[in-house]
């Protein structure tokens, strides 16, 4: 329907009111495109400027490749390339938790959607309730738990809590209960398939879209999490998000008193910021088509 929507309407009713309405829509759209896009475009440009040029030239004047590599080297020099350690940590935590999340949530969502067992309703309700609790609310309690069993600083102190992902169970539950008919599974059972075979050979292949969706959300949430790793894996074990704020502490422009051994200039911080979001940005770009479709499917009730 939307294809015919705006294309036919303006020709039919070119009243001043309609024209004004269209103009308002255009203004709103342009304003928000600028609002959402300008900071990102600026970030890309800022990475290629010298500290001096960043302040003196116009915000959208392009820098040079030479300055980009100078900024890059300044970042790599910072604490002997600790930025790579941070990125590696982020990758380890995010992917490790992603794997555990998939292993635990997909079967759970499957059983909750298509099974009937005692405690199913309790588990489902608990999942819904916990899903709505923001994960930061549990950070301090989890920190206390982790320090009680002496795991602080250990990669597991980030990976294990990240792996609890009720939203993934909910997504899988919705998917299986709306898209996979029970009769199909029952037919396979009658043909002599064991339960594991039914799951592995019939349910899993059908569930590929939702597995990808859960994987995506889990990875992004893990990568961007700050509060939990900030407490449970400090220092050299920190992921890039926490590292970024440590870098910030060495920027004289923001911390005049901290002009210590290695000062970090603003463009270098911009490079680090860009670096910290690149993996997620790449995942976004590659999965945007399927992602927007997937979110849309989640939004419909058909």
């Amino acid at each position, binding site marked *: 329907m939307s294809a015919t929507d705006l294309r036919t309407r303006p020709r039919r009713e070119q009243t001043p009111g309609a024209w004004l309405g269209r103009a308002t829509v255009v203004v709103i759209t342009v304003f928000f495109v600028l609002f959402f896009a300008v900071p990102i475009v600026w970030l890309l440009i800022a990475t290629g400027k010298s500290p001096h040029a960043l302040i003196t030239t116009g915000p959208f004047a392009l820098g040079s490749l030479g300055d980009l590599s100078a900024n890059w080297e300044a970042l790599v020099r910072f604490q002997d390339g600790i930025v790579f350690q941070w990125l590696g940590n982020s990758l380890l935590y995010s992917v490790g938790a992603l794997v555990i999340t998939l292993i*635990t*949530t997909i079967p759970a969502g499957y059983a909750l959607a298509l099974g009937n067992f005692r405690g199913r309703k309790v588990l489902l309700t608990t999942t819904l309730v916990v899903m709505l609790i923001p994960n930061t609310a549990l950070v*301090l309690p989890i920190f206390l738990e982790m320090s009680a069993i002496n795991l602080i600083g250990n990669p597991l102190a980030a990976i294990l809590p990240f792996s609890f992902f009720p939203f993934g169970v909910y997504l899988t539950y919705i998917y299986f209960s709306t898209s996979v008919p029970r009769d199909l599974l029952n037919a396979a059972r009658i043909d002599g398939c064991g339960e594991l075979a039914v799951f592995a050979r019939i349910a899993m292949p059908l569930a590929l879209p939702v597995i990808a969706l859960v994987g995506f959300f889990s990875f992004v949430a893990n990568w961007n999490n700050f509060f939990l790793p900030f407490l449970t894996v400090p220092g050299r074990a920190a992921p890039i998000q926490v590292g970024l704020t440590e870098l910030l502490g060495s920027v004289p422009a923001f911390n005049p008193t901290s002009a210590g051994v290695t000062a970090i200039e603003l463009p270098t911080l911009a490079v680090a910021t860009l670096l910290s979001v690149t993996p997620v940005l790449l995942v976004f770009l590659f999965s945007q088509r399927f992602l927007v479709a997937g979110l849309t499917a989640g*939004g419909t009730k058909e």
Partner: protein
Amino acid sequence: MTAPALDDSPSAAAAGSPREGRRQRAATPHRSVTVKWSRFSYVFVSGYVLFALAFGVLPTLYAVFIAFLDNEGRFSGITNFTKVLADFRFWPAAAHVGLFLLVWLVALMVLVTLLALVVHGIGRRWLSSSLRFVYYIPGALAGASSVVLWLFVLNPTVSPVSAVLHAFGFETFVQTVSPGNLPVVFAVIAFWTGAGNWIIVMYGALNSIPDEVLEAARMDGAGAVRTALHIQLPMLRKWIAYMAVMSLAAGAQLFVEPRVLSQATHAVVPTDWSLNQLTYLYAFKQQDLNGSAAIAVLLLVASLAVSLFFVVRGGLFERD
């Protein structure tokens, strides 16, 4: 709609097929198969249940437990709670977070709905999907990255929108993030990061309105505005409420934004601006884990109450 309703539990099973619900009548009465399946269901959920216990239930219980102890480990009743509530920093922090939530939620509810309607109304497919993508992309920059990026944007000397900042009379970074501005500043950052996600969800919800309904409205002479008010908005109501509740719960936990700003302004933005910063101070600066747990429990109870209300009364999770 083939989804089972939430209350479609084993207890609702029809007589004669004790383990299967109403679907059993359509399927086959293979009891042994069903029993085996039900046993396997436990295997399938076991991993998740384990994690839910270890990182949902257990930490919560532990926090509740130590919130009632003093620092010697003796039971102390509600002393910790009265202590944190009487802390001179508690109510200002609660007020900051409340003000931020107000600004942010109003912005989300009005602007996300408006933008979703606009994007949905655009006829050209490529334009609509490109717009959704542009709105969505800042979502990749959550957490510390987005705050650091906004440190630049809010700093008049380097900002890409320094003209706008100057127009508001802000000449230095510290002026931009002066205490009075903070709720709005955090709301803008949060909106920039998260709005795109919700625009896409709303867009999906708008897509579920049948074309014939909109066509009929147009035949009856309803313009875009009246269609939006009388047909699309009522359909979106549930999703707007869902967004508001999720955002309310998440926003109350504000931590990384004020922390990074506080670090970058050398505590011009105070280190105890939000409630979660206060839990952090209690735990790590005052070595008072019990007091910290008390604030965490208060926050947890608040968000639990909101989400319970929503699950039980909101009806979003009822599937017809």
